[in-house]
């Protein structure tokens, strides 16, 4: 079997097995275009690798855990992470590696190369995977090349590629990947050229930057832009860029650096060179018989074609839009750094300021009219922050993902989520609250007299020192009756808080060591030791960013909760007025304004069991073993406590399994009592998983309909290694 074919030996029958990109380059090479020395790695090699190592079925098992349509994007990202790790950890079997190695060495001995994807699905007129699969620049040495070929193969299964293939309806069972290995041309000016402007068919476009093309393609370096007249082959306009950076080779890879001053004043191409580049694009168009998007580079005076593909932006707008959305799921380190600055310096202080301002208003003295206006104002403020939460805070969570990928690349851990252990030492607001709860419980634990006093529930009989401490807690975190942190007006009831404290006090204190990773220091040292010099500094910064990003997954909810609690407080005030007047206790001023406002905001949905027995149905369906995502290792068994509404939490008993739709930080005070966590919402980095990991609890996320299928009192087993929840139905089934 031919694993590889040098570009010059490629024939028409090879098209399918070397992919669109490889085939285009090979054809151009035969036609006399100046392309770098290129070796095509066929999809036969990919297929042999995944078949012989068993990876093919492992990938398909991973993708068929559950219905793809029922997976949230976070779960798809988790799948992609696990699959990528399989590729990183699985070497190419010796019997196929030998021939491959020989082919690489005979063509590229001592040279640095670029390793690019060339999937057979790619670059056809109907779809464009541009940017969805990975390319690696400046790779030196056969071992490193072999490793990067595996990384390119793995990118066939990236979250973005999976989503895009799903959208195009391509069969994942048939997906395979060819690769192109090219000698790297260290160009001093590079760019792209469109033989036809997607927005105006009479024009062409050239974009150019100093240094390597990667800077332009990634969007990190702003290019100079020329609009060309196709017919007259003349420059119509030239738009200079703010020339600040360039991408240059650095060690084994590339690096974004400041552009030397003398270059920043000169455009990368003079007009003669711009014509030469445009001619090249037009020649490519003539050759392929349709408009082309050509990547090119100048090494001194010599112009090379790096790749050429049909222009796909003339596709239906819809599919193009989605592809760019998939691509936008990944943020660069630079982008995340500026987002962090904005969040820390602007958004969080803004949220706190808004919350403080709302706290100063005494709702009881407002007229009905003013109260209705206040509710509207609070609803708008809350809405504003909820939007910011989605647009800024959620994307910032990618800091964790970015770090995870870097960590897995260098460490190749058995557990692709080992990196989370390095992040968990971050102090999160909800952990501070839980610690304070544990301290209160400990006072009760050590004082049987106090325990008896609390059991009477008569405040006048409870030790006043203890009451003061409880009030301190309530002031800071609320009385736990509110679905949001800081809320005290939901029920104005200390009962749930006392229930939880008594339940905690009835069981041994949770040892701090059992819920904190002691290996974090060791892992951190091992990780950072993989880097030297500037790279080490970058790794430190990335870890720091990841920790902030991880912490914010918790804290943003807490801050948002404070704002929401003020909205709730205004609603409670309005409801009380309406109720009071309905009861005819005072001569009634008009309350319609408040009633309407409340009706607008009142929405509550109850989860329905999709398997509920229908009238006349001759059978009944029950879940036995539900599959979700393994999100915290371990196995535990206990009675389920299904949280349908916030008040269900106050009945939580030691040793129960927390089952809920979506854990948020305002619910996690029961986690120290729980033996496991099950969540409908999927993902390894959602709050339920994070907090379970902090406490060392087994956790399974992404169980569709979890809170409908599982009932409080069911004996359930949570297997956090495999992501399986097993249900023994012994709770009497209620008719819903």
């Amino acid at each position, binding site marked *: 079997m031919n694993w590889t074919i040098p570009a010059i030996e490629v024939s028409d029958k090879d098209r399918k097995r070397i992919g669109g990109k490889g085939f285009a380059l090979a054809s151009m090479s035969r036609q006399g275009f100046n392309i770098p020395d290129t070796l095509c790695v066929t999809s036969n090699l990919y297929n042999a690798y995944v078949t012989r190592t*068993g990876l*093919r*079925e492992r990938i*398909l*098992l991973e*993708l*068929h*855990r*559950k219905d793809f349509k029922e997976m949230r994007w976070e779960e798809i990202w988790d799948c992609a992470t696990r699959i990528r790790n399989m590729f990183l950890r699985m070497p190419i079997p010796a019997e196929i590696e030998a021939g491959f190695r020989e082919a690489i060495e005979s063509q590229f001995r001592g040279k640095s190369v670029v390793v690019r994807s060339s999937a057979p699905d790619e670059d056809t007129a109907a779809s464009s995977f541009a940017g969805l699969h990975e390319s690696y620049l400046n790779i030196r040495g056969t071992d490193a090349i072999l490793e990067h070929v595996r990384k390119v193969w793995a990118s066939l299964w990236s979250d973005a590629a999976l989503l895009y293939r799903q959208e195009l309806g391509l069969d994942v*069972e048939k997906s395979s990947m060819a690769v192109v290995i090219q000698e790297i041309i260290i160009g001093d000016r590079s760019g792209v050229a469109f033989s036809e402007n997607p927005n105006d068919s009479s024009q062409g476009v050239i974009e150019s930057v100093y240094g390597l093309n990667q800077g332009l393609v990634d969007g990190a370096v702003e290019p100079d832009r020329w609009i060309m007249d196709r017919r007259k082959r003349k420059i119509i306009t030239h738009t200079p860029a703010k020339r600040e950076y360039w991408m240059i080779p650095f060690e084994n890879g590339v690096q974004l650096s400041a552009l030397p001053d003398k270059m920043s004043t000169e455009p990368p191409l003079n007009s003669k060179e711009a014509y030469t580049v445009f001619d090249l694009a037009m020649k490519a168009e003539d050759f392929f018989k349709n408009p082309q998007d050509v990547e090119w580079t100048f090494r001194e005076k010599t112009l090379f074609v790096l790749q050429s593909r049909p222009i796909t932006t003339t596709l239906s707008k819809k599919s193009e839009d989605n592809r760019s959305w998939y691509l936008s799921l990944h943020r660069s380190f630079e982008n995340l750094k500026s987002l962090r600055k904005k969040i820390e310096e602007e958004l969080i202080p803004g949220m706190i300021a808004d919350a403080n301002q709302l706290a100063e208003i005494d709702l009881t003295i407002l007229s009905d009219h003013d109260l209705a206006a206040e509710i509207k104002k609070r609803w708008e403020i809350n809405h504003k922050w909820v939007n910011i939460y989605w647009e800024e805070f959620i994307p910032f969570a990618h800091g964790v993902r970015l770090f995870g990928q870097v960590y897995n690349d260098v460490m190749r851990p058995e557990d692709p989520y080992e990196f989370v252990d390095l992040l968990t030492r971050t102090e999160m607001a909800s952990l501070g609250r839980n610690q304070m709860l544990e301290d209160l419980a400990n006072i009760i634990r050590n004082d049987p007299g106090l325990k008896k006093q609390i059991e009477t529930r008569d405040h006048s009989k409870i030790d006043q020192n203890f009451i003061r401490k409880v009030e301190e807690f309530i002031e800071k975190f609320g009385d736990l009756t509110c679905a949001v942190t800081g809320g005290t007006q939901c029920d104005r009831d200390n009962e749930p808080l006392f229930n939880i404290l008594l339940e905690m006090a009835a069981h041994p204190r949770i040892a701090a060591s059992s819920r904190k990773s002691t290996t974090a220091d060791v892992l951190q040292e091992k990780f950072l030791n993989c880097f030297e010099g500037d790279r080490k500094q970058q790794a430190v910064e990335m870890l720091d960013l990841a920790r902030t990003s991880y912490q914010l997954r918790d804290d943003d909810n807490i801050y948002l909760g404070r704002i929401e609690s003020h909205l709730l407080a205004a609603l409670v005030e309005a409801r009380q007025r309406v109720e009071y007047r309905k009861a005819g206790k005072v001569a009634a001023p008009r309350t319609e304004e408040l009633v309407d406002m409340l009706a607008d905001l009142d929405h509550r949905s109850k989860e329905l069991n*999709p*398997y*509920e027995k*229908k009238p006349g*149905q*001759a*059978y*009944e*369906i*029950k*879940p*036995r*073993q*539900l*599959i979700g995502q393994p999100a915290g290792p371990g196995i535990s068994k206990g009675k389920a406590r299904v949280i349908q509404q916030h008040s269900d939490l106050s009945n939580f008993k030691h040793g129960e399994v927390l089952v809920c739709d979506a854990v948020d930080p305002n619910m996690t005070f029961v986690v120290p009592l729980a033996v496991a966590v099950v969540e409908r919402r999927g993902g390894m980095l959602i709050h339920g998983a994070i907090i379970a990991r902090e406490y060392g609890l087994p956790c399974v996320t992404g169980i569709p309909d979890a809170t409908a299928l599982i009932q409080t009192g069911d004996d359930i087993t949570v297997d956090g290694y*495999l992501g*399986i929840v097993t249900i023994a139905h012994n709770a009497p089934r209620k008719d819903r």
Partner: protein
Amino acid sequence: MDKTDKIHQELKELLLSQNLAVLSTHRDGQPYASLVAFVAAVDLKHLFFVTPKTTRKFANLSADCRVAMLINSSQNQVADFHQALSATVTGRAEEVSGDEKEKYLPFYLARHPYLQDFAKSPTCAFVRVTAQSYYLVKNFQNVMELHISK
């Protein structure tokens, strides 16, 4: 189609697509598995198969009518692990004869016409399993139960 109907449908398609099932019986606490050519009723309430009366499986189910059957769509390929469906059914087995046999045997033979001589031999029993519960396994580890109402 809602999720309940979907499960019922998947189960029905699986049962109607397969010719063979693994039958589990037991004797003195020792489980025993054998292969039978079966046919299932479309309402999933009954499954039928034929066996010579001299077999160990017939002796076992005559002594204790509680049986299990396993039906699955695997094709002895690696892809079975993510593609195949599998169902275990538990129920009670009994020999049917006389009018009932007259009534149901043609359905069985319509599915397995090549077993005409075998099924009509006086030494064979026509066995009906009344299903109580099905356990449907898909996506490798996802298990849903379907209990037939009494």
